């Protein structure tokens, strides 16, 4: 593992200063992706700026909105009693990321900043029409993920929180890779407060995407049967040793129907 200089600032402004001064700096939150990437030689930052010292953690349910601070661990999100009532689909998603030990370290901000194509949170950010708050601005969930491991974040921009509007009902169902527990395919389905429906898919393509044909069908009738004939094209989907693109396309429909069935 290549060496680096470690920093642990206590204020976002100091973190940004450190990033600007670094030759090739990286922000780190839980480190669950960055540290393995450095071990594998996929990343070799000159400086690591650990955002753990910012103490950006906590879940707040207020009115029709749930705000999760960026440094909140998956375990803390999954265990939050208020969130379980407000958005059970999001609570369940957080409780299914990785394993208990990973959930004690990994954070929501780190997960979405990394934008792994097989990560779970992107499906909820897009599926629930969330808003990503940074130290500089607010970014709509739909505009946040721009490609494989690519986001709208600038290199020195720090996520501070994610704001989720409460839906009428929602659910997330994933088909995990049994070894890594990442989503081979994961589908988040939500009926939002205004009656519109969102179907967001992770794991299947280079980045999270919506399925407009399913959304329209579910707006007419929110039942698994409404989308039994709505398929996605396999052409642009991921294909690897774990699953072909055709299999992933098949899973999108199966998991979407299960999510509709489980939505509450």
């Amino acid at each position, binding site marked *: 593992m290549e060496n680096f200089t470690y920093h642990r600032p206590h204020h976002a402004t100091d973190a940004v200063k450190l990033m600007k001064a670094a030759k090739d700096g990286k922000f780190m939150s839980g*480190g669950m992706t960055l540290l393995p990437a450095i071990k594998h030689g996929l990343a070799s930052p000159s400086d690591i700026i650990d955002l753990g010292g910012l103490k950006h953690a906590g879940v707040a349910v207020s009115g029709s909105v749930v705000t999760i601070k960026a440094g909140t661990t998956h375990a803390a999100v999954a265990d939050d009693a208020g969130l379980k009532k407000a958005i059970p689909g999001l609570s369940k998603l957080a409780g299914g990321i990785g*394993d208990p*030990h990973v959930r004690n370290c990994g954070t929501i901000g780190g997960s979405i900043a990394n934008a792994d194509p097989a990560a779970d949170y992107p499906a909820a950010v897009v599926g629930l029409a969330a808003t990503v708050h940074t130290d500089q601005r607010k970014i709509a969930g739909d505009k946040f993920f721009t490609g494989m491991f690519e986001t709208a974040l600038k290199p020195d921009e720090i996520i501070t929180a994610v704001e989720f509007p409460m839906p009428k009902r929602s659910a997330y169902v994933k088909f995990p890779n049994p070894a*890594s527990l990442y989503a081979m395919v994961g589908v988040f389905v939500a009926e939002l407060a205004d009656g519109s429906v969102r179907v967001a898919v992770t794991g299947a393509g280079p980045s999270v995407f919506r399925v407009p044909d399913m959304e329209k069908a579910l707006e007419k009738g929110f039942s698994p049967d409404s989308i039994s004939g709505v398929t996605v094209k396999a052409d642009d989907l991921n294909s690897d040793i774990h699953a072909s693109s055709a299999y992933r396309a098949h899973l999108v429909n199966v998991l979407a129907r299960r999510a509709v069935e489980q939505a509450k």
Partner: protein
Amino acid sequence: MPIVSMKVNGKEVSGEVEGRTLLVEFIREGLGLTGTHVGCDTSQCGACVVHVDGKAIKSCTALAVACEGAEVTTIEGLAKNGTLHPMQEAFRENHGLQCGFCTPGMIMAAIDLVNRKGKKLDEATVRHELEGNICRCTGYHNIVKAIQDGASRM
């Protein structure tokens, strides 16, 4: 090089580390506590699980320097005055180990599980919660039995 200080198994320790020094390296090589194992080194197998500030984490995927001021418990910190922790005793009595390589991580994960979910654990819960711990001997039947037994004694 940075100096890191933390409390390991109740004892104040400190040492010089590099930015990249992993917590498990500091524990094993810096402190000589070799009960914590490194299996996969890719945060999947769970042989390196220790408790940091009361929570189970994979010490192969944590920086030592980030644990400044933390309270760390390793497998060596469980037995008190020569008496095994009830979970260790349960693993011994239920033959919850074969080669023993995964055992420290299994026991640390098991105690964390009891801390989170209580002493009454059904088999399905234990199996599900062990997602982050792999036994290459595939000795899961007795590991699960041992955890259920150990939980009830804690």
